[in-house]
């Protein structure tokens, strides 16, 4: 196995593109190193992107924030601007691992690991976050929910990497929330995850919304019916019931060691209702 630590994105792309065997990108390493230690992944080339200075940056862009691929959870959690605009995205990222893991784990790494249970991704998808994919043929913008193809499998082509994610600008009275269900209180993997992002007008009527579910299908996905159930309402009990029903209906989980189909469908609705309530209260400034 070769280990490379380039200092520019271009060099990283060249290394990845030139490798004939299996190449893996190393950011925080909190997934990759575990996979390598347990024998699940045996790459021929590991490209560490942490020496690329630009990827450590959180920068303002068009009123939103661009988060570099090497920004660890702990740095995101300490960024007042991102926390104020996108508390749901930040709380999703902060749920990854322990405090020690937070010092290494990155939101973009969580995205590119392509786990259906990734904690930062439902909130990012609900936020309308856009991943910037850089490869041998230049760069392209991809909605985060389209990065994963299935568990552990991405839509990135050979030589491509995600160098950053853009969280868009926020209007007034807008907020988001992420909740996951785990049987324990931490250090666990989502049995269901739900991100809700909504915008209210001055009267408290919802004008825009996005709802995403995790861990209840092969990919994290948006639930347009749940968003439609919110838009045009004051996010009252009737709307919340409709959101819950839409999410329960949209979930297509499997029975496995983490939960039953029946349980996950039901809890998808429970979490959606609770997350929407939190997002609404945050948007109103009453949370």
């Amino acid at each position, binding site marked *: 196995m070769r280990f490379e630590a380039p200092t520019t994105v271009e060099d990283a792309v060249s290394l990845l593109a030139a490798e004939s065997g299996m190449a893996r990108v190393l950011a925080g390493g909190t997934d990759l190193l575990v996979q390598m230690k347990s024998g699940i992944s045996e790459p021929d080339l590991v490209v560490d992107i942490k020496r690329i200075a630009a990827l450590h940056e959180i920068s303002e862009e068009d009123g939103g924030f661009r988060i570099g691929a090497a920004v660890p959870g702990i740095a995101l959690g300490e960024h007042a601007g991102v926390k104020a605009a996108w508390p749901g995205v930040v709380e999703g990222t902060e749920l990854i691992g322990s405090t020690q893991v937070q010092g290494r784990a990155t939101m973009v790494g969580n995205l590119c690991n392509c786990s259906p249970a990734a904690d930062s991704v439902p909130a990012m998808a609900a936020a309308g976050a856009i991943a910037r994919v850089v490869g041998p043929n230049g760069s392209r913008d991809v909605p985060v929910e389209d990065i994963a193809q299935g568990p552990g499998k991405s839509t990135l082509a050979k030589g491509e990497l995600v160098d950053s994610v853009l969280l868009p600008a926020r209007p007034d009275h807008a907020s988001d929330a992420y909740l996951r*269900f785990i*049987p324990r*209180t931490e250090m*666990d*993997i989502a049995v269901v995850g739900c991100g809700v992002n909504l915008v209210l007008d001055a009267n408290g009527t919802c004008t825009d919304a996005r709802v995403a579910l995790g861990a209840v299908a092969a990919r994290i996905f948006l639930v347009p019916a749940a968003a439609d159930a919110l838009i045009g309402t004051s996010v009252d009990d009737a709307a919340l019931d409709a959101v819950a029903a839409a999410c329960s209906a949209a979930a297509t989980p499997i029975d496995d*060691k983490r939960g*039953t189909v*029946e349980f996950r469908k039901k809890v998808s609705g*429970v979490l959606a209702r609770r997350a929407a309530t939190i997002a609404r209260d945050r948007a109103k400034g009453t949370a």
Partner: protein
Amino acid sequence: MLDKTAENGEFKVIGTRPERPDGVDKVTGRARFGADMVMPGMLIGKVLRSPHAHANIKSIDTSAAEALEGVKAVITAADFTADVPEAEYDTMVNCIAHGKALYDGHGVAAVAATSRSIANKALKLIKVEYEVLPHVTDVEEACKDDAPLLHDNIFTEGLEETPTTPSNISGRVQFGHGDVDEGFAAADKVVERKFRTEATHQGYIEPHACVGNLSPDGTGELWCCTQGHFMVRNSCAAILGLDISRLRVTASEIGGGFGGKTTIFIEPLALALSRKAGRPVKLVMSRDEVFRATGPTSSASMWIKIGAKNDGTITAMEGLLKYQGGAFKGSWVSLGCMTAFACYRADHMKTVGYDVLVNRPRAAAYRAPGAPMAAFAVESVVTELAGELGRDPLEFRLQNAAKEGDQSSYGPKHRAHGLMETLEQAKAHDHYNAPLGPNQGRGVACGFWFNFGGQTSTSLNIGADGTVNVSVGTVDVGGSRASMCLMVAEELGVPYEKVRCVVADTSSLGHNDITDGSRTTFSSGMALILSARDAKQKLCARAAKIWEIPEDAVEWVDGHARPAGPNAGEFDPMSLAEVAGKAETTGGPIAGHHECNARGAGVSFATHMVDTEVDPETGRVTVLRYTVFQDAGKAIHPAYVEGQFQGGAVQGIGWAINEEYIYGEDGRLQNAGFLDYRIPVASDLPMIDTVIIETPNKGHPYGVRGVGETSIVPPMAAIANSVSAAAGVRLTELPMSPPRVLKAMDDAKA
């Protein structure tokens, strides 16, 4: 035997809480655990394990692995040719499959190579031809006549007539007294229910690890992480055909055992690889191997029936317990049967148990083996029956609690113990009367464990400066070295800091049984107290020699030799250091020893109280408050007694709520790791409050009772009673995981 008690004010250091002697090494990383040993020329061993739950091994071709550069030895069952006694045969076959893989993870072959990566490559080059057989992992399924049969030479023992067809039920046991039919006829209310529990793992943080070094002349040494290195020596010597005196086993520091390290899994493999390679071999299990191949506890299927009169008197208690012990005999179902009703007095009791074989790893002891699941079932029914009678659950238990002189459920009459005191203190505690919020419930339950004594040998040596070294042969799993030092300091009348304790290797002491049965503080402590008394006698004799007076004219008081009375003469008392400093000229080194098969281990009872809250929309259980009331006899080092109480409660919380072995349709373990085998994390738990009750055990000089195991007996029942109250529906299956609780609530509403 009890001759020192707190009441007569005799204790000076017993009951204090000094720092543990191994504390600094553990927090600085200097302590050496199983995997920390390195020997010159050491090879790395790896075990190839069966991916099938049940399969005949048609052939094993190791030639390609042996040809790989860096591979120094490959072994299979064919390398184990010693005439192994019956008692060790199953242990050997569990370490390495003989002709048939009996569970997913069963060892099939092992390699030793110059590096880990070469060893891993070599494993992939071993070609095993399997004939996959139908399998069974469920205890009830395994009892059916048409179930896949694990062994064709096991016929159910304990039946009136020996059966002629082999069975997965290896034995039937029965305990009790009276006539339960008569007892139930006299009852006004009867409650009966069925219960299920899933297997759980001991979950120790340190995986099994060892380094074996076996010379061509048949002498060897073994470093390993175990609860009993004498057991390791005897088992390995038998399996490898060695004299036990030729194998010296040293126990490393241990990162948890909980009963799971009371047998061997990899040690004979490391020694066999070393013998073949002519070099030391290190074997360290991965977490995956620990889950798949080492001892979980049994899963169980149980039925319990209890009857009582309207005045609350229990008239009859009956139970049927089926425990699977994995692919071999020995599920501890008999201990489940013996302990099930041990907290109660009733004229009519009967328990029947079946020991069942399934395609799972061989069950190992887990803290009060066999008792917690039976207590879960029994204590659930006791609380339900109390409710049917309109009685407070603690009052109902107080009315029916077993007392001194009562016929016990398991044979003998009860001796003095602290069960009533635990119940009374529970009833009087502010926890019992604290208000509960919505969706919250409170549960109580009692538990019992026998405790054990066993073979023990200790040694005590006094240095020229008057400091003391003591050697025990019982591994320190829970802070026992501190307790040993306290008891010796108490007996000799010297400060705790002047006494140091080591766990000596198998060549340095007589045989010591395993650290199990909550026996170490009781039996090694007793042997050390008697070793110290032996040394004191010698110290007095040396002082007598110096003073030129008769030996019986000297007594040992407050750490000093002094004339026993005015007729003995006028001499200034001599301290331990003064007598020891003159040892060279008075007869040489001064030591004390004691060997015994310790008897008189006092039973320990506990009552647990817990509040939980159930999320009505997700079934998720939160433990809000927890209090343990347990009889310790005498708490030598109260901090470690509290630690045992808390640890048992926490493991019980895990077992009750989320921990379980999950097998797929293919018979493979689905959750062989700490991500999906969910032990509680710190933030899942409230502070576990403890109340130490001290009803002295008359079988120990200081009144000690073992405390390590009783604490895991009541938790699942207490939590089930609490969750059932909070959820409004009786939970009868473990774990009470969110999907199961939610479904039970939804079914109850429907």
